[in-house]
């Protein structure tokens, strides 16, 4: 073990212990119950942060710094460039770079926008061009996951390098990564960092994520939980296809079980209703027994395709018997009608048939046909081909708008391994304005919360304890928005109204809080090793409305089936229009309130109506929050990297 890792572990243990020491004291001895409405939320927020510290410490516990693969690169490779609406020139720049990748490969442009000019450009360069097949007409498209799934069935490389439309690959990207698959046959994914070239040192939109594409991914890698981040990654086709097949079988088992249950109920009900038609009733009762037997057969391990095939045949035979019976009855009726002379039209001599009456025969209430028809509909749902989806097999997960995280978690749960290779091998473009950046962050957060709600890693079978915590840790971090509201409110309430969330700003408080706080900061410093993390810290507080919206909207989506109003991130520069003040009003309101609180607090001390220590603690707290939130104002004024560079040089 490296000395660095030992140091990290010592500090991590200390951070968690001092944290427990502080938060336990906060719960047991420091709550001001008279102001419980702020005291309790605050201590809950602090407990949330302690759990966050714990999860971060666990993440760093086994951080893995890989030297690179040992095996020589081997295997056939397809390079996929995914695009939806990016400018053709941008896509082609990436595609031309992809063509120049040194390791032998095929390059494909996956155009979800189905644009003729994109197709022409790709073909002119001799590149593969893939759009959705006709199977997808009127079926759920599943965004980028669907685009990739579609392409998987049109190509045959053993490995797939996935690149977003703006990610220019290094010619050596495959040489540096493919060997990992040879080192270990269970490796399904090699992720490399995302790095943005249109971002300068100041990076006002916080696009670079050096802490994530560095210590955090290395930490997750140590637990065999390196994340798949959608681009700049190589995947093993066999692993993805296996995922698709297992998912297909699972889905089929569930839907078959559900459908057969429903069919049994429906048949029982229809049988009760049709007491007046004994032939129908017998037929329905027999069918019900068949369905029950089919269900039992599947439970006892009979293959689903066999059972449903036979059941189909049985139901078809039964419904043709019923239809025949119906027809016979109608023929009898017609004969009877024919026998009545009054029913003949006097002038034409033809039979007058009451069309309305005939129509009624085929409606649900009057005809036995209807009963069979609704059974037929259920049987349709029993089909083994997933008629509701374009492809029965969906290798990339479709349960979330961040298909990458969901897919990697599935791979991990099936025993596949992942690798984080810490070397920049592709360079891309970050959003260039605040609005686009906000949408992107919202989408990431929403996707992560969808995975939490649909496929909770803590409960998911097949994951190791470490993997559970690595996935859960990322999800937990997106709850920060709720804690932020409390962290912003508490000092404002104290400075303005003197309401104290704690008993006293005593020596006890400092003795317990300061070690926790300082060691925590120290841990970050050691882990970051010179990486600038302040931008990330600022945004983790400053984007609190985004985190909250992500939580509420994904909850509404998963539980109440409300659409997420999904937006693809724009990568071709800034959107026009006025300052997007509307997007950041909560942050601006918070800034105003914090400044007012600061002024009020100072006045109250000068007037002698406030406690000096309390005011000092809360002032420091407010100044930190203001420093963090101020990034929003910088971001609002940011006009893209070109303009920023000019300003810095003092050009007109």
């Amino acid at each position, binding site marked *: 073990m490296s000395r660095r890792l030992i140091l990290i572990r010592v500090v991590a243990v200390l951070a968690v212990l001092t944290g427990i020491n502080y938060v336990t004291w906060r719960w047991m001895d420091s709550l001001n119950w008279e102001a419980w409405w702020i005291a309790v939320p605050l201590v809950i927020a602090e407990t949330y942060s302690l759990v966050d510290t714990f999860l971060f410490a666990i993440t760093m516990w086994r951080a893995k710094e890989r030297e690179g693969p040992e095996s020589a690169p081997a295997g056939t490779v397809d390079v996929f460039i995914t695009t939806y609406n990016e400018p053709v020139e941008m896509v082609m720049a990436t595609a031309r770079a992809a063509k120049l990748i040194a390791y032998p490969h095929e390059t494909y442009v996956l155009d979800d926008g189905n644009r003729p000019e994109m197709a022409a450009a790709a073909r002119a360069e001799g590149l593969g061009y893939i759009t959705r097949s006709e199977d997808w007409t009127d079926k759920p498209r599943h965004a980028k996951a669907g685009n990739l799934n579609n392409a998987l069935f049109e190509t*045959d490389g053993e490995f797939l390098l996935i690149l977003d439309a703006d990610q220019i690959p290094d010619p050596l990207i495959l040489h540096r990564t493919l060997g990992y698959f040879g080192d270990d046959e269970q490796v399904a994914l090699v992720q490399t960092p995302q790095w943005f070239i249109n971002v300068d040192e100041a990076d006002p939109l916080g696009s670079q994520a050096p802490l994530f594409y560095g210590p955090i991914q290395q930490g997750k890698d140590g637990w065999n939980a390196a994340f798949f981040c959608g681009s700049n990654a190589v995947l093993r086709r066999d692993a993805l*296809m296996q995922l698709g097949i297992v998912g*297909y*079988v699972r889905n089929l088992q569930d839907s078959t079980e559900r459908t057969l249950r429903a069919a049994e109920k429906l048949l029982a009900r229809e049988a009760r209703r049709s007491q007046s038609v004994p032939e129908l009733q017998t037929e329905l009762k027999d069918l019900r027994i068949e369905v029950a037997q089919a269900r039992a057969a599947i439970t006892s*391990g009979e*293959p*689903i395709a066999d059972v449903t095939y036979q059941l189909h045949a049985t139901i078809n035979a039964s419904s043709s018997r019923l239809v025949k019976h119906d027809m016979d009855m109608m023929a009898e009726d017609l004969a009877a009608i024919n026998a009545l002379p009054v029913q003949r039209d006097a002038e034409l001599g033809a039979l007058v048939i009451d069309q309305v009456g005939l129509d009624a025969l085929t409606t649900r209430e009057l005809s036995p046909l209807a009963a069979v028809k609704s059974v037929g509909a259920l049987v349709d749902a029993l089909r083994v081909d997933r008629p509701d989806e374009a492809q029965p*097999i969906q290798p990339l997960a479709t349960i979330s708008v961040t298909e990458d995280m969901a897919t990697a978690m599935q791979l991990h749960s099936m025993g596949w391994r992942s690798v984080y290779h810490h070397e920049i091998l592709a360079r891309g473009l970050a959003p260039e304005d605040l609005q686009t950046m906000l949408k992107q962050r919202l989408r990431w957060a929403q996707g992560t919360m969808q995975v939490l709600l649909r496929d909770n890693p803590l409960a998911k079978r097949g994951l190791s304890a470490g993997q559970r915590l690595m996935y859960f840790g990322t999800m937990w971090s997106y709850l920060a928005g709720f804690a932020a509201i409390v962290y912003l409110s508490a000092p404002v309430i104290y400075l303005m109204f003197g309401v104290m969330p704690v008993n006293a700003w005593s020596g006890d408080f400092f003795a317990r809080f300061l070690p926790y706080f300082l060691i925590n900061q120290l841990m970050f410093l050691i882990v970051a090793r010179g990486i600038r993390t302040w931008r990330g810290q600022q945004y983790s507080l400053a984007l609190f409305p985004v985190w909250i919206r992500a939580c509420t909207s994904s909850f509404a989506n998963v539980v109440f089936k409300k659409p997420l109003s999904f937006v693809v991130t724009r990568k071709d520069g800034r959107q026009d229009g006025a300052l997007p003040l509307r997007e950041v009003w909560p942050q601006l309101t918070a800034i105003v309130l914090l400044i007012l609180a600061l002024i009020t607090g100072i006045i109250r001390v000068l007037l002698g109506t406030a406690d000096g220590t309390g005011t000092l603690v809360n002032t420091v707290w407010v100044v930190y929050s203001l420093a963090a939130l101020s990034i929003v104002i910088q971001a609002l004024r940011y006009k893209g990297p070109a303009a920023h560079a000019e300003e810095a040089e003092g050009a007109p």
Partner: protein
Amino acid sequence: MNLNVSTHAHHAVVRPEGRLTASGAPRLKQAIKKLIDDGHPRIVVDLAQTEFIDSSGLGALIGGLKAARLAEGDLRLAAASDSVKSVLKLTSLDRVLRDHPTVEEAFGDG
């Protein structure tokens, strides 16, 4: 991979010989599609000479099953070797498709 196709009175037989992997899967898919288009939607995939199958090969089988059922036929497996059986089991596809002992028995129900 070699692909042998033969048609009989009540069914057609597709026999992939060798390794059925990503590179062979599209050809299997095409062969099945052609049989269905030619009016032979009752298809047996004879796996006796298939040494190895990967997930892409299984994907082609499921695609074929879908196409055959849509054409009111069926796709059935026969005579899988132990290595193929183990992949069927690993992916739990044996819960969906039965491996019939012989090609003749695959459409034993008529």
